[in-house]
């Protein structure tokens, strides 16, 4: 398959994730959609690594996975803290920093 097909798939996945981040209100699902966006970017990185014939893109994708894991742990910790304080688990209601 041409590399362009992989890029198209990665673009579609990224856009689905971006739409989900905007449309959903549950912070858990927002985190899941962030994962989708990171995965779309990962696929593009790996496709470009294949196109170029170097493994640097795969290294970059692995580092992205590490950063995604960190983001997940901190995000889930935040959600647990929100739940503990009996605040609504809803990104629209948590607007105290709104100014």
């Amino acid at each position, binding site marked *: *398959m041409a*590399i*362009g097909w*992989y890029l198209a798939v990665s673009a579609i996945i990224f856009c689905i994730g971006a739409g989900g981040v905007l*449309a959903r209100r549950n912070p858990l699902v927002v985190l899941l959609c962030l994962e989708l966006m990171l995965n779309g970017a990962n696929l593009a990185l790996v496709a470009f690594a*294949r*196109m170029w*014939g170097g493994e640097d893109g795969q*290294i970059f994708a692995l580092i992205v996975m590490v950063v995604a894991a960190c983001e997940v742990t901190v995000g889930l910790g935040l959600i647990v803290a929100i739940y503990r304080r009996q605040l609504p688990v809803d990104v629209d209601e948590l607007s105290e920093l709104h100014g």
Partner: protein
Amino acid sequence: MSVAFFFIAAIGAIAAAVGVVALRNPFYSVLALAAHLVFLAGLFLLLRAEFLAFAQVVVYAGAVMVLYVFVVSYVGGGEQLPSGGALKVLGPLFALALAIELFIATLGSALKGVKGKGAPYVSGFGTPDHIGSLFLTKYLFPFEAASILLLVAAVGAVVLARRRRGLEHDAELERVIDTVRPAYTGTMAEAADAGPAAREQPEVEPVGPRGHEGGW
């Protein structure tokens, strides 16, 4: 053969991604994301990224998804919030505009390699051997920085999710400390012969054959 495999994996990945966004119950969203990651690992395999596909399945679809499932079952994500008003319309529109722009950018680009099948395959491309040697030579600093980042994130998650005030009130604290317990059951208060438990509680007769004098 690889064409068929590509379309199976690509359609599966996109369908599972739609499922993540569209399913109402967060638990099913998590399961859809796990399926998406497995399909994406198939795409990585087609792109000769063997180690990355392996790490994707084991670390992502395994460990991270378990974390998600735990939090969903703890928070009880089955509330099924309705989507927000204006963003429910604007979000998909924005995603569509972004998709069109990305398609123009990638497929309409003048990069010749995008039309081709990629560089000629070198034996060992993307194997743990190559990735590992790159990580320990050329990319040693990002590797170490990633480990520090993981440590910081783990500590940060513990700090964020811990109980803020410790034990809630004095009453609860007393309940834990001043529980009536038989003597000689091995508390530190007995060892020091002090503390509120030892002083204030009436002496409870020890149970068992061993009396006061025969204590350890």
